[in-house]
């Protein structure tokens, strides 16, 4: 048992590389900020250090809306060759990484611990995936455990590497707001995704918008802002009459429960449930917490 842990440690140790300020591989944008780290430790595809970077950040506690938006934005960016930077925290950060990886693009996780440590632990699988298909980055030497004050510190790297920081969903006192502030101080652009004003999950982002940060009204807004080609209209999958009806309702109304859909269509659940299920199986809609919404593809 002991030997296995040792072996694993050595395996990770062997993968860790370093880059110092001033070396050609050191991210150029990061070099511009005043308190840039002297040394960066990293695991993964080093060519991502030279890519255009956009950070997608947000709270750890989230709603479906936040999670799906983070995924969609990160996916659209990654598809166009932008490296999506985030902090690998649970919630929005993890969704951003997943979105980028699912789109087959690159993503950079900037950690507040050593690069050999997985925090939070439940993200072990995600970290493996980022190690092999993206980049794990930290200013802390390997073996550094998580500490409270590391995380706001590393946020300056997230915003510093990126030409643009997008805050997807933030509560009132979220670390993502610190990142947004840092980005502004560093002279970088910030966008925020507006949310339901009744919901506590969106107070932080809505406040940013009130203070003058530009709002993201669609994924295309982000692409346009960066001068990237807009998403083309995807061909609608062939749907039956009743499937198309439900598709349109969800496209208009956002997320809905089966009961709401029944009410709108004046239909019985026995008619609606099989259709919802087959739409879900086709990947056109998804569900969470009992509600259905269009899958972001």
């Amino acid at each position, binding site marked *: 048992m002991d030997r296995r842990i040792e072996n694993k440690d050595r395996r990770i140790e062997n993968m860790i590389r370093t880059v110092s300020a001033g070396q050609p591989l050191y991210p150029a944008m990061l070099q511009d900020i005043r308190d840039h780290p002297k040394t960066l430790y990293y695991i993964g595809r080093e060519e991502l250090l030279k890519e255009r970077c956009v950070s997608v950040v947000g709270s*750890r*506690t*989230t*709603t*479906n*809306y936040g*999670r799906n938006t983070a995924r969609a934005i990160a996916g659209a960016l990654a598809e166009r060759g932008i490296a999506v930077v985030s902090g690998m925290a*649970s*919630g*929005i*950060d*993890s*969704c951003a990484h*997943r979105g980028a990886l699912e789109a087959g693009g690159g993503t950079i996780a900037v950690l507040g611990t050593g690069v050999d440590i997985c925090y*939070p632990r*439940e*993200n072990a699988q*995600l970290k493996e995936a980022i190690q092999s298909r993206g980049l794990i980055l930290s200013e802390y030497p390997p073996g550094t455990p998580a500490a409270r004050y590391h995380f706001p510190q590393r946020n300056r790297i997230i915003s510093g590497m990126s030409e643009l920081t997008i805050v997807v969903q933030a*509560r009132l006192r979220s670390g993502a707001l610190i990142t947004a502030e840092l980005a502004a101080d560093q002279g970088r652009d910030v966008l925020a995704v507006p949310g*339901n004003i*009744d*919901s*506590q*999950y969106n107070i932080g982002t809505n406040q940013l918008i009130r203070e003058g940060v530009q709002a993201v009204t669609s994924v295309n807004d982000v692409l346009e802002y960066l001068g990237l080609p807009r998403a083309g209209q995807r061909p609608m999958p062939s749907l039956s009459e009743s499937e198309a009806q439900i598709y349109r309702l969800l496209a208009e109304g956002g997320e809905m*429960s*089966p*009961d*709401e859909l*029944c*009410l709108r269509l*004046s239909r*019985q*659940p*026995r008619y*609606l*449930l*099989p*259709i*919802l*299920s*087959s739409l*879900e*199986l086709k*990947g056109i809609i998804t*569900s*969470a*917490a*009992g*509600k259905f919404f269009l899958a972001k593809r």
Partner: protein
Amino acid sequence: MLMKIQTASLTGVEGYPVTVETDLRRGMPDFSVVGLADTTIRESCKRLRPAIMNSGYSFPNERITVNLVPADRPKEGSHFDLPIALSIIFLMEGIVPPGDTAFLGEVSLDGTVNPVQGALPLAISLRAAGIRSIILPAENAEEAGILRDVRILPVKTIRQAVDHISGSRPVPAFRGGQGQAPEAYDVDYSQVIGQESAKRAMMIAAAGNHGMLMMGGPGCGKTMLARRLPTILPPLSYEERLEIMGIYSVAGLLGPGMPVIKGRPFRSPHQSITMAGLVGGGARAKPGELSLAHRGVLFLDELGEFDSRVIDALRQPVEEGLVRIMRRQEEVIFPARVMVVVASNPCKCGYLWDEKRICTCTGGQLASHRRRLAGPFSDRIDMHIKILPVAEKEIFAPGEGRKPVSSEDMRRQVCLAMQRQEDRYRGSRYRSNGGLDETGIRRFCVLDEPCRKKMKEAFSGMDLTMRGYHKVLKIAMTIADLEGKDGIEPDHLSEALMYRFSEEDIGKRRS
């Protein structure tokens, strides 16, 4: 001088006839009871002497031996008082009781007859043994009155019983109790506003006898939905009502407040319940909540708050439909054919699914909540459904263009689906779709080519496990039965696939 009269005794909820043999003989005055009688019965020696004398009869100054036949089965209960007392009086007065009359009852020192527990199952066993008339305490007449072909003769005092047998003043037979009253519930599904898809799920669960796990935030109507489940199960048959009332009688729950059972039981035990309280047991084996829910619904609210060992003890009894308790010399069996419904919040604080309020659970708390719901018992629950709060619109404009489905409509459909299952499973060891095991699923839930294709997609797209796959087939079979179809169709599978939780629903992937 020897006297034999009939009474009965109980093992669990099953009665068996017992003959009380009483012998009076010259010798040192003594009173002994033999035949594996428990303390209550042996104490009757002390009670009966004053009771008989206060009733105005003389007590023999002789050697009294009472034997309870069969002598090798343990007997308990205070209902042996009356038969023993009467046998002594009959001997003294020279009365010969008719052979087709039996006696039950506890006596007080003043000669009044007190009610007993288990009067109904005792009476049922006597009826089966060919007894035509039963003399029992007046307070028990209502419950025993549900028996149709036995004369129930309620008495209040020992003297009344003696006068009846001697013929000097016959007791009128008990007639027209509430036992014959039609089934009635004070709740109905039409009282539930919205939640139409949840009602649909309840109907499927009821029709196929599938266990059900409801998840939803606080106050969204889980208990309300569960409480109405008995109203859509098929009407109680006479035999079923006898079974249920027998259990309640043994548990001592029938009395002046509730003399008869009006409908299928709904039991909702508290989270603090012990193993003996839930499955039954104790020093004098009593039916637990599980048996009290026999032929009805056992509802466990906040499943995560129950002791997990108590919950897992439910697994085997629920699968077998009965509880076995080993006691001193015999096995006591309580029936337990229940429909199990459990409810839980999506997380510890309850707001995981709430878009407006913040869920304050940590990752560790979510994981522990999930573990609590994933025991061997809950793993075997077929249907997992999500209950959402009713939309404001439906609360304030109810019935706009639609009438809420009523229990009567739902019950009609459930009955038809059950009829189809009965026809299909006749001659096999299965009774309902919910009770199918792997062999049964392979034999009865046959998939045609389009269905197989659908399940193949589902298997890869929804990461189903083998057990999950079987659950879907069983539910689909019930949906087919509800729709009046002979085989499973792709649409039935599609709907069945809705009754499960994704990892996101239980907070496994908050990100």
